[in-house]
């Protein structure tokens, strides 16, 4: 971007603008405004945005080819081309004229050779600085200066400086008048006759090596990433210099730097930063106890969604930069367990199974230090989130995870119950007793799952539960399929201890009333088959030869069921 003088601008073009030039100028601004709106509505790489900026550039080049550089004057609510209005609107932030005028731009010029990236950059800045913020860190003019677009030219006034009272020389005292006389005397005494530095050139001329080194110094500085340097300084200040009044401000800055480091995937910086703040917190215990609550608050903030949400942009990068996974894990482990509240919901957005797994492990580690935040997530109304978090409880130490799983095993969501049961069983099969009542759950899935866990291996304790359930007729469902499944589970987990009950159920059946008698017989036959004991086999043989058709039928159905199962298994 170059600022040129008014004289030059006036002398270069438009000595004789025709009506056509005016029309073109007006159309051009109209296209520019459309592009500006599209840039505000759509991302830059969106087709609509791209097309609209291309339109502007095409028209600009057409104009410049015919009439030279396109320059317009800026007034509060309008743009003028050779004193004729080419755009007018109300003086507010939706009006391009107002945005330019507000920041002091008096005229603007697109020059020959203007290219699409320059126009796109200008549109970006216009939208960025559409609204002004009091005590901001820049405006359209400062941004244009920094962007230095080679073919965009403007003149800006010091709009916001005009109110300032300018000091002038006569208001400044160069020295204390009381000392002036003394100063003159001293100056007379100390001033020396000039010995011309004949050796000047030899002494002060830069050697080729020095010139080279200087160039390198500048180059290195231009490419220097100051972040670590900056953090070193801030940490020195935090460690040794900061006072109570300033700590909050400094920590806010550190927090912003931490967030930036995460967003730039500079996890080693983030790790270093958190490690140092942890160290500082430790050191504060002895001599600056007042700092501890603020440092704790820092970690709480650093672990919050407002900071960690930048990771949403980072997940895809991790797929490419695999080596960063470990670093990120190290960073996040330095956070407060409350980070779980931010990371948990974000994990739902992660598509990569590997990253999901990493996050679950991480959440587990954080919850291992304090399970309370994870508990809050497990009570979250978002069922998907709860379900995602349940498996984390598997490896956590203590009774609380089991209590939570038991609670979740009664969750209104079938999926959550199922996941909770799986997790619970994977964690501790002794807890089956606690969840045994779910054998009567309304959900087929849950019932099946319970029975599946029951029948997973031979277990005297579990056998006792099922035996008691069947023998004492504790089942609350009148569902033959359920009954058969319970018997099958008993056969899978049971032992010879169950044989007397099964004999009674199969051969006598007298104790069973009602229509489910046949189901009990069949179930008992199935259970006996599953027991795989000689005594059980003898009973089955006996059943096959029974005089009672009901017993023989039960035996036959059990055989058929078993064959089907076997067949299905073989297939």
């Amino acid at each position, binding site marked *: 971007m170059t600022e040129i003088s008014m004289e*030059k601008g006036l*002398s*270069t073009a438009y000595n004789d603008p025709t009506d056509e030039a005016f029309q073109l100028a007006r159309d051009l601004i109209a296209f520019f405004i459309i592009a500006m709106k599209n840039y505000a509505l759509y991302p830059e790489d969106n087709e609509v945005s791209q097309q609209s900026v291309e339109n502007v550039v095409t028209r600009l080049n057409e104009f410049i080819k015919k009439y030279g550089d396109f320059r317009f004057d800026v007034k509060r609510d309008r743009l003028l081309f050779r004193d004729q209005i080419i755009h007018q609107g109300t003086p507010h932030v939706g009006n391009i004229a107002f945005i330019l005028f507000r920041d002091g731009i008096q005229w603007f010029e697109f020059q020959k050779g203007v290219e699409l990236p320059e126009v796109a950059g200008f549109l970006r800045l216009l939208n960025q600085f559409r609204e002004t*913020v*009091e*005590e*901001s*860190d*820049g*405006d359209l003019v*400062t941004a244009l*200066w*920094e962007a*230095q677009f080679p073919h965009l030219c403007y003149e800006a006034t*010091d709009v*916001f*400086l005009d109110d300032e009272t*300018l*000091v*002038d020389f006569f208001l*400044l*005292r*160069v*020295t*204390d*008048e009381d*000392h*002036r006389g*003394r*100063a*003159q005397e*001293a*100056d007379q005494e100390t*001033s*020396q*006759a*000039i010995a011309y*530095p004949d050796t*000047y050139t030899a002494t*002060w*001329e*830069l050697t080729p090596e*020095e*010139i080279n080194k*200087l160039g390198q110094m*500048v180059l290195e*500085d*231009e490419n220097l990433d*100051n972040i670590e340097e*900056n953090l070193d*300084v*801030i940490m020195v*200040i935090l460690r*040794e*210099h900061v006072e109570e009044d*300033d700590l909050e401000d*400094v920590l*806010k*800055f550190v927090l912003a730097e931490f967030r*930036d480091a995460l967003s730039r995937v500079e996890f080693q910086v983030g790790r270093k930063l958190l490690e140092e703040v942890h160290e500082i917190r430790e050191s504060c215990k002895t001599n600056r106890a007042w700092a501890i609550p603020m440092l704790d608050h820092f970690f709480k903030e650093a672990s919050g969604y407002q900071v960690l949400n930048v990771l949403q942009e980072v997940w895809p990068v991790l797929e490419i930069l695999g080596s960063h996974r470990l670093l990120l894990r190290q960073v996040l482990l330095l956070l407060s367990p409350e980070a779980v509240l931010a990371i948990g919901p974000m994990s739902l957005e992660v598509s990569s199974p590997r990253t999901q797994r990493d996050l679950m492990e991480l959440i587990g580690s954080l919850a291992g230090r304090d399970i309370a935040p994870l508990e809050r997530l497990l009570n979250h109304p978002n069922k998907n989130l709860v379900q995602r978090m349940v498996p984390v409880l598997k490896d956590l130490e203590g009774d609380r995870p089991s209590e939570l799983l038991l609670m979740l095993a009664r969750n209104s969501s079938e999926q959550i119950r199922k996941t909770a049961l799986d997790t619970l069983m994977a964690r501790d099969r002794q807890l089956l007793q606690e969840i045994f009542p779910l054998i009567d759950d309304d959900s087929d899935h849950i019932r099946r799952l319970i029975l599946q866990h029951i029948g997973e291996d031979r277990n005297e304790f579990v056998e006792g539960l099922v035996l008691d359930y069947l023998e004492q007729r504790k089942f609350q469902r009148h569902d033959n399929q359920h009954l058969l499944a319970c018997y099958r589970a008993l056969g899978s987990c049971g032992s010879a201890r169950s044989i007397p009950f099964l004999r009674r159920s199969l051969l006598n059946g007298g104790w069973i009333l009602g229509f489910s008698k046949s189901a009990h017989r069949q179930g008992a036959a199935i259970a006996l088959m599953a027991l795989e004991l000689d005594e059980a086999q003898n009973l089955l043989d006996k059943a096959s030869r029974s005089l009672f058709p009901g017993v023989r039928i039960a035996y036959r159905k059990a055989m058929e069921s078993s064959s089907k199962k076997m067949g299905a298994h073989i297939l």
Partner: protein
Amino acid sequence: MTTDSQERPDQPDEIFLRTFYWLLQTVKIHQDNNKVLQESAREFINSVVQSCVDDPHITLEIFRGRFYLREKKLIYRIVSFDLVHGMLQFFESRGLQGLRLSITVGDAPIEQVLAFARILNHAGRQENPLAWIAQRLEGDAFSWVEIVHNQEELPEEELELRERAKRAYFYSLAAVKDVGKKIFSKRPVGIRKTKRLVQKLVDILSEDESLLLSMSTIRDFDDYTYTHSVNVAVLSLCLGKRIGLSRTAMERLGICGLFHDLGKTAISREILFKPERLTNQEFEEIERHPVKSVIDIVKLRTDGDLKAKIIPPIFEHHLKYDLSGYPRYHREKPQGLFGRILSIADVFDAMTSSRVYRPVPFSPDRALGMMTEGAGKDFDPILLKVFFNMLGVFPVGTLLELDTGEIGLAMETPEEAMQDRPMVLILVSDGKDGFRKGKPVNLAERDTHTGLFRRNIVKSRHPESYGIQPAEFLL
């Protein structure tokens, strides 16, 4: 940077001056029909035509011992020093203040151009050269050239630039005060104004380094911290430009300069203006100011990236090159580039300013001399060399006593070849214990008969000892 200017290819303005000079030299030794002479005339014509891009005329004039081309000070390289000074002497010895050449020279016969060159040459032997030239150039044959009589007034563009520079300086002063006050009273503060002003300073610097250096001589005994901050920013920017920093790096450097002493605003005036020796506790408070400045930066409403870039230099500006300064802490990394620049600018301005505990400051040349003793210890030796080259042996604003009995202010950094012979603005007593502006003289100027320098420096003094605000005279 010196090398940068040496390696820079010929600039159009320089080409114009060179072809003019070449024409004046070759016409002395050749007949009109000589091919070399005719070629030099054609080159001169071409350079005039090519220089008339936006204007059908090109004006070359002398003001205060410097050439101005199209009302802009002619910027030239060190390698062109002899050429420029040769031409200056050529013009001055003929009383010629300037020439205005028209693009129509392109239509003039070669013979006319050669005649013009011969007139200028022969004028040196006339009793009243200027009148003689004027008389000879009268008539249609020389309609493409006219003599310029300037009124010792600066060209309009130069005046406008000076006004811009003055405004930028004093607005910067106001901006630093504003930021300091707002931070002190815990009010939110952004850096929009500061950024704009630094950008202005960078722009002015790109047009006229000497002008900006003149601004850095401004002193305010009562509000030292603020003028010091702006001066450090200005000196740092000039040094930054010399070493070839990019525009955006310059912007950051300028902000560092303006804010490097923000932390001092929290120090009580009792300490800052204490004439006696400070107690240890008071000294510790002074030494804490880089830390306080950083904490103040942290509170600014600006993006973290900029803060991250300006914090280290501000923290390091008293650290010294060998890390023996303060804040004291275990450190393995060397002082950064910006920190090293700020150190030099900071010390130079501090040494040359009058303070309550040191009413007699060091004159700029002596301050530089003392700083050289710290090369490699307190200061980066290479940067210090560049700084020295930038300011010259007698930095702008140095009060010089001449062997003619006159006193004057060094007003412009000479090129390296004549570092010890600056342009000087003679100061004349106003009869009321003060001074008024006299004429500018070039100490490199020699007597045409004896070949000796017309004026020599006897002593350097500090302007503050005489209550002189150099910028008031130099701007």
